[in-house]
């Protein structure tokens, strides 16, 4: 009987807390949203499952959690190596910022910069939307976070999960779980967050604006762009070297036409493997005791604010540009400057077509969308450089 009682004490039913149950429910909600609503399934399914795994109560003395890192301990006057848990090794790629640059390599190998190259003025919308990053940074300071934590929280406004993880692993590792979950949750909710803001800030006439089809871009332009853009960006902001180096390297693999095999691996198998490891280990890091804090709630609030400000910044800047342009830009396109490739561009297309079913904004929206990826990586590089 005693043995049975001892065993019952080691089961999860005995030691599970309210926080763990809540986090498991959140994990199930993520999975359900991905399956039923098709909200970012490639991210929400691994994160949701990771959250469920990470909130199973631990058995004392067993190395199971992502936080059970390997270490050296002093035992009987000797230094002994204690291996970490399996999950902690998977989490290494997150905590050391290894996965995000690999994701960027895959994104680079997938991205076609043609629309951006055919209409360079739309690049500025990608910069304008980064106002969300810096205003949220100030908001976080106002709420009492220190500068490093505020920088890591602000980058949620860049609407770029890998960038948010990369920067928070460098500036505020203690907030990494909350920031990653907030960034990916809001990215999944782009189709819910953006449309009301876009409609509120534009008139029907503006939403009906049709834009000229993009010009054909030569092969040489596409090949030269990744090298030139990398040099420009990193000479201005060297802190962005890692993320942008991998992004443009991936794009060079694609556009050079001589490394098709490498480009193909980067945009398929490799990015898939890294996404699985990243999503699952981030999910597993949301252990209730470390995740359910007042700080996490504030981070979620600031994250929503960051997305809203970034969307508004892009739309308003497009309207501002229209004051000087002969060929007007549809201001909805500005909302795609928040990055979140390609969801925010799809949202622009959807909102545009609700007004005029023959207006195709998707290809125009892809320009600020990819510029937003570059912009958020530069913003991360600046914050990393200044706050380290």
């Amino acid at each position, binding site marked *: 009987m005693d043995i049975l009682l001892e065993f019952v004490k080691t089961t999860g039913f005995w030691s599970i807390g309210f926080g763990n149950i809540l986090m498991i429910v959140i994990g199930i909600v993520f999975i359900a949203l991905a399956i039923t609503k098709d909200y970012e399934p490639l991210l929400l399914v691994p994160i949701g499952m990771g959250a469920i795994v990470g909130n199973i109560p631990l058995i004392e003395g067993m190395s199971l959690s992502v936080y059970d890192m390997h270490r050296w301990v002093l035992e009987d006057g000797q230094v002994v190596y204690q291996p970490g848990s399996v999950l902690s090794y998977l989490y290494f790629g997150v905590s050391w910022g290894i996965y995000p640059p690999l994701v960027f390599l895959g994104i680079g190998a997938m991205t076609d910069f043609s629309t*951006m*190259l055919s209409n*360079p*003025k739309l*690049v*500025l919308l*990608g*910069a*304008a939307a*980064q*106002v969300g*990053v*810096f*205003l949220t*940074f*100030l908001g976080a*300071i*106002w709420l009492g976070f*220190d*500068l490093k934590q*505020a*920088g890591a929280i602000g980058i949620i406004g860049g609407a770029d999960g890998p960038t948010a993880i990369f920067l928070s692993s460098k500036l505020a590792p203690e907030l990494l779980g909350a920031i990653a979950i907030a960034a990916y949750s809001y990215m999944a909710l782009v189709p819910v967050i953006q449309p009301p803001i876009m409609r509120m800030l534009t008139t029907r006439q503006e939403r009906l604006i049709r834009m000229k089809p993009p010009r054909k871009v*030569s*092969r*040489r*332009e596409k090949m*030269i*762009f990744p090298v*030139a*853009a990398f040099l*420009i*960006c990193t000479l*201005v*902001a060297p802190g962005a070297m890692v993320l942008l180096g991998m992004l443009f390297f991936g794009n060079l693999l694609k556009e050079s*036409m001589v490394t*098709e095999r490498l480009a193909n691996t980067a945009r398929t198998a490799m990015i898939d493997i890294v996404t699985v490891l990243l999503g699952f280990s981030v999910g597993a890091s949301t252990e209730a005791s470390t995740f359910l804090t007042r700080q996490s709630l504030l981070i979620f609030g600031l994250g929503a604010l960051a997305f809203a400000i970034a969307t508004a910044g892009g739309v308003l800047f497009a309207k501002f540009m229209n004051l000087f342009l002969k060929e007007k830009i549809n201001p909805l396109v500005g909302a795609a400057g928040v990055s979140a490739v390609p969801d925010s561009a799809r949202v622009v297309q959807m909102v545009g077509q609700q007004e005029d079913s023959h207006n195709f904004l998707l290809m125009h929206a892809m320009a600020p969308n990819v*510029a937003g990826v*570059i*912009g958020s990586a*530069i*913003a991360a590089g*600046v*914050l990393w450089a*200044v*706050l380290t």
Partner: protein
Amino acid sequence: MFATPVFATTPLSVLGYLLALDEIAVRGISIAVAGMLIVMLALIFISLFIAASPRILAAVAKVYPEPVERHRKRTETQDRDVNDEAVLAAIGFVLHTEFQKQCAGDDVR
């Protein structure tokens, strides 16, 4: 946030002094303004480069004309695709012939 004013040395710290913001807030505002300017500047440079590149490349093309289409070696996958098409065509031909024979047989009966 609203703590002891800092000694005013830069325009932003003067602003901080006037608004009685603390040192962290003033530093935060400086970082935010500088960061936004740097992001804007980098993307303006990229935009200018993209705008100039067709003209630069047109000039370069006069010396080194862009090849119309590069002849690339067929990959194994492409070869396999071609073979697959040939096999499918052969299967289709055989099926068609057999079907016609059957129809002819039905007519005779």
